[in-house]
């Protein structure tokens, strides 16, 4: 049950956030986002020329959250460019491949870097992708979960292929976000957020919409 204040009867507020995707090249970070952006609408076949920049909204009970999703180059040789991408980001999704320990340690490097250099209020989410390949699993759920808890990250295991937990991931992020707004420094935000509602502690999910 939500214990929301008065303004819920008005038209839902919409917020806009910059979300960056970090993760090594083949971990499927773009597939994850493509699944989120397109997957819910099977008959909606807009031709995309690329998955570098995408937008998608999530409808919560009392707000619409629009994500501007920034894909980044995952190749090791471009690592030094990463700070330019996550500058001013509200959310960072760090993706690793559950079948590769290397991608997990690389993800940890990114998280350390984000905690040191990104905006103060940034929501960091650790995502283990490819759980459809459970028989080849190399990174244990408990290990990743413990790491996430230790560092105060959101954590989820997903499969872009089977769409497992994909929408759930973005809803979890959307729910977590407004709370962080008050703690983030507006000066570091690339774009402001029209947020005047009191942050909700337990708003219920009502599904997703375009």
């Amino acid at each position: 049950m939500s214990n929301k204040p008065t303004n819920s009867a008005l038209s839902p507020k919409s917020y806009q956030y910059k979300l960056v995707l970090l993760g090594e090249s083949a971990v499927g970070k773009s597939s994850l986002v493509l699944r989120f952006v397109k997957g819910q609408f099977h008959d909606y076949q807009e031709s995309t020329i690329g998955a570098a920049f995408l937008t998608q909204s999530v409808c919560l009970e009392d707000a619409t959250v629009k994500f501007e999703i920034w894909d980044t180059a995952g190749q090791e040789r471009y690592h030094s460019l990463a700070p330019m991408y996550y500058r001013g980001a509200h959310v960072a999704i760090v993706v690793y491949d559950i079948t590769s320990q290397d991608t997990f340690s690389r993800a940890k490097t990114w998280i350390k870097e984000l905690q040191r250099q990104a905006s103060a209020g940034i929501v960091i989410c650790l995502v283990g992708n490819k759980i459809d390949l459970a028989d080849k699993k190399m990174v244990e759920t408990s290990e990743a979960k413990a790491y996430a808890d230790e560092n105060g990250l959101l954590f989820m295991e997903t499969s872009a292929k089977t769409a497992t937990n994909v929408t759930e991931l973005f809803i979890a992020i959307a729910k977590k976000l407004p709370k962080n707004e008050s703690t983030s420094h507006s000066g570091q935000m690339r774009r402001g957020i029209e947020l005047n509602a009191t942050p909700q502690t337990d708003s219920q999910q009502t599904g997703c919409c375009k």
Partner: protein
Amino acid sequence: MKKDETADNELMIFLKYLLSEALVVGDKILATQLQATIKCLSNFRHYDLKRVLNSLRADYKLRSCYVAYLTRCKRSLLAFNHKYEKLLAELTRDQEMLNKYMISMMTRLFLEKHQRVLLKFVVDFQSLVLFDEKSDLLERFLTAKHAAMRQDVMWKDATEPQLQEARLCMERMIMSHIYLYAMYPNGDGDTSRDRLLEEHMQKLSAVITPDHRDLRIPSIYQNECPWLAAQKELIMINAFKTPEDKLGCVARCCSTIMTLLSLSLTCNTANHSAVPVADDLVPVLLYVIIQSGTPNLLSTIQYIESYCCKNNDSASFAADGCYKNAKIDGEVWYWWTQFVAAVNFIKSMDYKE
């Protein structure tokens, strides 16, 4: 005899089928016509029916020339229609261009009337040192002139879109007055820095290939190499004067690359849902920037970061307060960030093959 009766029956069944179809789709007129036909046909005996059908067939044969003629007519009319639609689109585009031109001429006239103020502004602008002071002054001047324009006798009946367009024109014209001071605030320091990067890129362009260790562009993407269309977009950047126009130029360059990459992808893979991603864009963008040899890149970046990003960083989302911000959407900033990142990377590259 028996056989003829079945043929009659088949005709009836066919008509009844048509009737039921007409009823299902709710075509009342067709249904009534069919009902009348069925009723009429049921009055004929077999022999008469055959005669009726034969005469119908003969009649149809007689008209077949005419039907063919009508088909031809329709085809040529459709072709004409298509041609006219294209002409209309061209005319609409012409009209847009003429409107833009007219607005830009009128803006020029307006600014000529305010020549003295403009010259004073240019002098003031030159005397300032700090970027944010300069961009504040520019913003204030633009807003004041735009407000004055609304009062002007020539502009008082202009529509809101026309006034917005006029503001863009005014910005372009004012920028062209202060362009050199805004683009190269440190004079020779800036130009020599630009020249160094240009020379660096020139040396790189001699050694760089799509397989270079810093790029390693996958072979499936090398079809369209050297991505000339994207290079051409980028080279235009110095022809544009306002920061927004320059940003648009970078965005067009990047989206051209993405289009070319997705073209290669559809040619080379069976998987049609595959699309190019940032991993694919970055090395190609590096290649395009280096090969295009676009001059003045560092000053361009400094210019845009100081005249566009200042407003962008402040967290004002209100429509009025951040005129510049509202016009530029997130996607343009994304391409811009990719571009700046690529230029930074190029600075760190060396000439080893």
